[in-house]
């Protein structure tokens, strides 16, 4: 995690923001045995903190918005694939995947006043949205503390607060999925979250086949939608985080449909398996690249 903030009050603001991120990580991590999510997955019903409650509620809304492409109940499937620390990556049997899929879907998650209840076979993993939520909360804290210019980087998620101190836009590069030390272009932004989901971020190889970590919960297999990466730009960090996963799962054509209905909420840059770049038209002015790209109209 890096936070660069500018201004006289920035030092305390950054400390407060870092604290908030660490607290949320403790609360929302699926791997930390003391986290609320870990306990909830074990107990299946419990009273949770405001943050956990509001993020689970929001995740259910995002599940609906993305027709289930974003799904926090993917934990049992990801577990079968060994995408948690201490587990070994393996291709699960068809039967194991079918069993794991039984508890998958937002309808297996019930939220009441302060309580969350999961069905027996359901477990949650907020990994695809927790970083976004954390950077959103951290951004609020920075702004409350008078910071008007800051740039945050949270494990590949980037968040710009305001512009650079000199009034210029921030330059956020989009990693080249084929070589992350390079980039395929730069986004000129202010006050936006930029989140990328890519198959290159976590994967394993078995019998010459690559299996990445972004699971399509409709099949139980790593999403095979023809995309190498999706970068989402939005005012809303949580939305950007969830959508980067959802659009990756959906693929280019279905993502275009979602975009035409929600072009006010987000913009996106897609890189396909054949290395073509597609950019939504609301980002046309912010995206700079030496490579050619196609613009997606609303």
């Amino acid at each position, binding site marked *: 995690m890096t936070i660069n903030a500018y201004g006289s009050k920035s030092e305390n603001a950054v400390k407060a923001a870092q604290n908030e991120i660490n607290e949320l990580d403790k609360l929302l991590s699926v791997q930390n045995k003391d986290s609320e999510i870990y306990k909830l997955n074990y107990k299946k019903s419990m009273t949770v903190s405001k943050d956990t409650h509001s993020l689970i509620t929001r995740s259910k809304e995002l599940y609906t918005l993305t027709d289930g492409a974003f799904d926090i109940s993917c934990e049992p499937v990801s577990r079968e694939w060994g995408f948690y620390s201490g587990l070994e990556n393996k291709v699960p049997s068809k039967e194991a995947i079918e069993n794991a899929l039984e508890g998958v879907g937002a309808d297996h998650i019930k939220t009441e006043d302060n309580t969350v209840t999961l069905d027996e076979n359901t477990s949650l993993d907020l990994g695809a949205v927790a970083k976004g939520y954390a950077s959103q909360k951290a951004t609020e804290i920075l702004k409350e503390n008078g910071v008007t210019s800051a740039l945050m980087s949270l494990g590949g998620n980037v968040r710009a607060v305001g512009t650079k101190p*000199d009034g210029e836009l921030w330059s956020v590069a989009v990693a080249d999925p084929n070589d992350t030390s390079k980039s395929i272009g730069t986004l000129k932004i202010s006050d936006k979250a930029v989140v990328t989901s890519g198959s290159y971020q976590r994967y394993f190889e078995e019998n010459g086949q690559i299996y990445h970590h972004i699971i399509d919960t409709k099949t139980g297999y790593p999403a095979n939608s023809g995309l190498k990466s999706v970068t989402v730009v939005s005012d809303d960090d949580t939305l950007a985080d969830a959508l980067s996963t959802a659009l990756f799962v959906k693929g280019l054509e279905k993502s275009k449909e979602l975009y035409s209905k929600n072009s006010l909420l987000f913009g996106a840059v897609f890189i396909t398996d054949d290395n073509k770049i597609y950019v939504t038209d609301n980002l046309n002015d912010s995206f700079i690249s030496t490579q050619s790209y196609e613009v997606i109209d609303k």
Partner: protein
Amino acid sequence: MKKSSTSTRNSDKQNDIIGSDLYDCSQTVSYKVKNRIWIIVFSVLAVLCLGAWLFISNISSPSKIVEIYQNGSLVEKIDLNSVTNEREITLSGEHGTNIILISNGHIKMKSADCPDKLCVKHGELKNSYSPIVCLPNKVVIKFENSSDGVDAKAGAVR
């Protein structure tokens, strides 16, 4: 009179100690060795610092194309090598005006109405690592290729 006698006594004492005591003598030798080590350490550090300073101050942009920005938008783009006559550019901002002086191969902030005048104190633009910035008036002077500078990268987790 009193004063001088005291000092004489003191120096006598010192001579006695150094002259008579072998133990003290050996300590002096070890001090000398230690001093020599420190001198070497500091010389090496000094040379390294000088080297680093020379290195950084000599990194100049391969092209001498300079961009002047105000409020984030490009005001002027100049190839310093093609400047024949010295000239000034005046920019007005919230805190008065900034006067930029351009001559062949050189650019600097000549004067500014801003409170801290850091931009004037910066002197000439030398390399792409330290642009001339006037925060109050939101003026930035920098070499062209440093505008490709990326602030962060999305997606690269590790």
